């Protein structure tokens, strides 16, 4: 980037917060808002889920895990796309923070993928009679978990953090291109092998309160993801910039 021609005038710079040094305090400032929003929304969502939403005519109360399961599954896929977005930003603009953001998002994404699988399994036992079914959705979610693990493992295996960021970034991009291919091939494989015996789309249309509960929980998960990613990226920044002056000053100011 060319140096600012007139240092007296502070231009609005889109890249201003792309530096870890400027982003660190900003992240610290907004973090509590997202964390509290997550807590409040989750409480509201759980309340709606348990006390407001009606009991399902066919599944009884077992269906109530939907309020965790579906938002978790949404987040698991969405976070992978966001992760790939940051990875692409890091590769295109060569900004350090982008790689850190991608790294910070990966464990949260993996957590939600695992949560979606776990709750799906708990839900599957009473409704389908099995902990695990080789259904297209379950299988592609499982593969998504493998993709997250691959990203985390590759990042952890490379010593140099900058190289790790870039290599894992390439992997995230390759993964995001492959996700639709995997999804459709798995779907197709599934219909070939056992037919659509378990289908969620055939369920009766959902009551409005159920949908509201799911929406609120999804928002809560969003807020949680942002807060968790920001908290994690702050530790990553401190760890990686530990040689720099501003971290030393910051550490002194804490004493």
């Amino acid at each position: 980037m060319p140096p600012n021609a007139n240092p007296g005038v502070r231009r609005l710079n889109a890249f201003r917060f792309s530096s870890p040094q400027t982003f660190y305090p900003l992240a610290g400032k907004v973090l509590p808002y997202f964390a509290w929003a997550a807590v409040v929304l989750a409480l509201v969502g759980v309340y709606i889920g348990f006390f407001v939403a009606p009991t399902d005519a066919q599944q009884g109360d077992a269906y109530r895990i939907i309020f965790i399961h579906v938002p978790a599954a949404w987040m698991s896929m969405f976070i992978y796309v966001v992760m790939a977005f940051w990875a692409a930003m890091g590769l295109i603009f060569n900004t350090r923070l982008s790689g850190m953001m991608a790294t910070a998002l990966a464990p949260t994404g993996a957590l939600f993928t695992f949560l979606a699988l776990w709750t799906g399994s708990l839900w599957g036992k009473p409704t389908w009679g099995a902990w695990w079914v080789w259904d297209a959705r379950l299988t592609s979610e499982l593969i998504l978990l493998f993709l997250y693990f691959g990203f985390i493992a590759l990042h952890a295996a490379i010593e140099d953090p900058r190289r790790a960021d870039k290599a894992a970034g390439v992997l995230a991009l390759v993964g995001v291109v492959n996700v639709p291919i995997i999804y459709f091939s798995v779907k197709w494989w599934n219909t070939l092998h056992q037919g659509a015996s378990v289908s969620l789309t055939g369920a009766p249309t959902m009551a409005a309160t159920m949908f509201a509960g799911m929406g609120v929980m999804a928002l809560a998960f969003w807020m949680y993801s942002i807060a968790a990613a920001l908290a994690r990226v702050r530790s990553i920044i401190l760890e990686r910039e530990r040689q720099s002056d501003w971290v030393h000053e910051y550490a002194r100011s804490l004493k």
Partner: protein
Amino acid sequence: MLKTLRLVIHRDLLLALRRRADVANSLLFFVIVVSLFPFGVGPEANLLRAIAPGVLWVAALLASMLALARMFAADYADGTLEQMLLAPAPLSIVVLGKIIAHWLLTGLPLVVLSPLLALQFDMPRDAIGVLVASLALGTPVLSLIGAIGAALTLGVRGAGVLTALLVLPLYIPVLILGAGAVDAAAAGLDPGAHLMLLAALLLFAATCALWPVAAALRIAVE
């Protein structure tokens, strides 16, 4: 550019010819893994016939993956890779050459050997033809996707296991389509759609996989 491509392929084949054991080992691995399954599930002919497409395909996938370490590691260790990056020829051409050489050394022998193993599982004759066709279309895709994993893990601790972790989830569509084609043929259905999709996957991988491999090699060397 074609000259560079030819040179790279020729060089890799020549190197492999000097160390023939490497090529033979992955082929032997394929044969042994396939032969293990009857011991695991019993010699019942109907069962073996039913699982044969999947077994052959999974074994081919693993054999192709095990050979990935050879693709760039030696060149990376002795500095040849850096010279290739500095060379005026586009890196993707060099990469393509190495991938083609890798396929000729690991994929093609699997394709040639597979009918023999299919006979052990008493596969019908039509299905064997489809198996060969699906492997011929699918193993190049394995080499192309595998090259990404091999390039990303260059010089990394525990590269072998890591490559498996990165690459195997991405192999799943190839496995589904490849084994599906053979399954369809064995069931008397038309395997055309599977083979077409495999061919589409091959074209897609051939056009899109070279960029990430080249990027990963640059990252590894810088």
